[in-house]
């Protein structure tokens, strides 16, 4: 009978289907697309709200060294966390791909565990653990290591919190990518004497390029717009775009400037969004070809 990929039989062109998806589509249009477009258009108008095109709001942002510092620290945090996510998760994913057994199960369970921990609790746990006079400092003191400097309230605080948060997703995407590599290809390379590094570089990495693009682009979107971890674990100044937008909206009560910051976030993130959509399209095409 018909496979799942084929269109459903007998129910040709049923307008009832359109009616059933209408509610979520309207919601998305009304509360996602419309407000986003509205904000983008408004920020390209005058600061006092008078009609006409103007770059006043953007001039204000880009002439303000505080705003620029915030943008800079956001980019720094995003890039550093992205690199660390790959550096930490790729070895774990490789280990899980080639080893089975109790230790592998234990490692997998631990690495995926953050998936079950809500953000507020992660932040709280990290403050009590790596914060000043936290458990880690006590542990280090007991083995004779003194002079521990806490990363909390420094730019590394959010990096650690975000790393914790994004680990399971990154690992899942990478393990899924690695599962597609055949043992035969790796054994053949080993037979002709290729080193581990060489195998990683020439066989493994090209095969998981798609997975790397997917997890990096989606992580970029969530890291760049993160609020909770930077707010709880980072310094008050400079602040990341997330807390910056929040404060501009709620405390400074300047919705137009908050909108300008949001539009700048949209623009920078659109690169990652586009990469993600393209790689998803490629993936679908590849899936269709393997099915056909």
């Amino acid at each position, binding site marked *: 009978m018909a496979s799942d990929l084929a269109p459903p039989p007998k129910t040709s062109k049923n307008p009832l289907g359109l009616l059933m998806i209408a509610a979520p589509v309207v919601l998305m249009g009304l509360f996602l697309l419309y407000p986003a477009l509205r904000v983008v258009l408004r920020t390209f108008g005058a600061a006092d709200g008078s009609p006409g095109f103007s770059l006043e709001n953007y001039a204000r942002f880009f002439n303000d060294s505080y705003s620029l510092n915030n943008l800079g620290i956001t980019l720094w945090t995003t890039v550093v966390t992205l690199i660390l996510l790959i550096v930490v998760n790729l070895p774990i994913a490789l280990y899980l791909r080639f080893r089975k057994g109790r230790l592998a199960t234990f490692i997998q369970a*631990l690495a995926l565990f953050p998936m079950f921990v809500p*953000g507020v609790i992660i932040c709280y746990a990290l403050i009590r653990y790596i914060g000043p006079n936290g458990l880690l400092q006590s542990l280090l003191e007991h083995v004779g290591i003194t002079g521990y400097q806490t990363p909390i309230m420094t730019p590394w605080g959010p990096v650690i919190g975000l790393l914790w948060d994004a680990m399971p997703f990154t690992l899942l995407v990478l393990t899924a990518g690695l599962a597609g590599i055949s043992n035969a290809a790796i054994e053949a390379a080993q037979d002709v004497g290729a080193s581990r590094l060489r195998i990683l570089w020439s066989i493994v990495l090209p095969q998981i390029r798609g997975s790397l693009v997917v997890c990096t682009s989606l992580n970029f979107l969530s890291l760049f717009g993160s609020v909770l971890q930077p707010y709880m674990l980072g310094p008050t100044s400079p602040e990341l775009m997330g807390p910056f937008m929040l404060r501009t909206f709620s405390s400074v009560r300047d919705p137009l400037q908050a909108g300008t910051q949001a539009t700048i976030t949209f623009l920078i993130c659109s690169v990652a969004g586009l990469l993600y959509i393209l790689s998803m399209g490629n993936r679908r095409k590849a899936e269709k070809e393997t099915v056909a």
Partner: protein
Amino acid sequence: MIRRFDLAGLVIAAALVFFILLPVLTVFIWAFAEQWFYPSLLPTKWGLRFWSKVLERPDVWSAFWTSMKITTLVTGLSALICLPAAYAFARMEFPGRQAFMMSFLMATAFPRFAITISLAVLFLVFNLVGTVTGVVIVQLLTTLLLMIWLPTAAFRGVSRNMEEAARDVGAGPLRVFWSITLPQALPSIAAAVLMTFVWTFYETEGAWLVGAPRITTMPILMMQMINNQMVVQYGAVLSVLLWVPSLAALLLARRVLGSDTFAKGLGA
């Protein structure tokens, strides 16, 4: 088979224990500590004194009920809106089906908080900032994807042969849906509802931006307690108290859905 000493595995496991396990353990220890002076490795005095103190606080209860009310409302609305759409995506052919599916996927390609900011700017016009309605709309938006994709997969998994057999013996379409399709898809749908409930309960950023300062949900209260540094134990007790049931719910959902689908529900 010769067991080689697995150095790489041990290094990874040890690093993960230090990075993932110990922070969570710290919270649990704090919840049962009455006194814990630095640099003692364990509390100087154990006890449950702070549990009753937390449970006596009126702000804890009011935040809890606010959260429960909003979360129930959001989850219910989300199910009402998304489940028919999931069925349509899984089982019906209609004009623009592919394009609509893609457009839902594309919604993930936006930075979520920037969207929330633009929504909050719009809410200023309608006086929805600081209202329950505003928070419900923001959170509802974050649930749509999970509530559409997981049930779509569930409806797709229902055996067509059984549906057709029922139709052959004369069952009407509603009867087939009620007696064959729904019971088979129900466990996965229930799991999706459970996951939506837990993640909505802990949704912080949207509720904070749109709800402040009038609406205090549980995660916002926890944040305030953690930042004001009054008593360390309050945050710890609340974390343990709220997180343990949600962990049980999520593990149950993962069991029903299978680990792959569960992970997909989280965006993987």
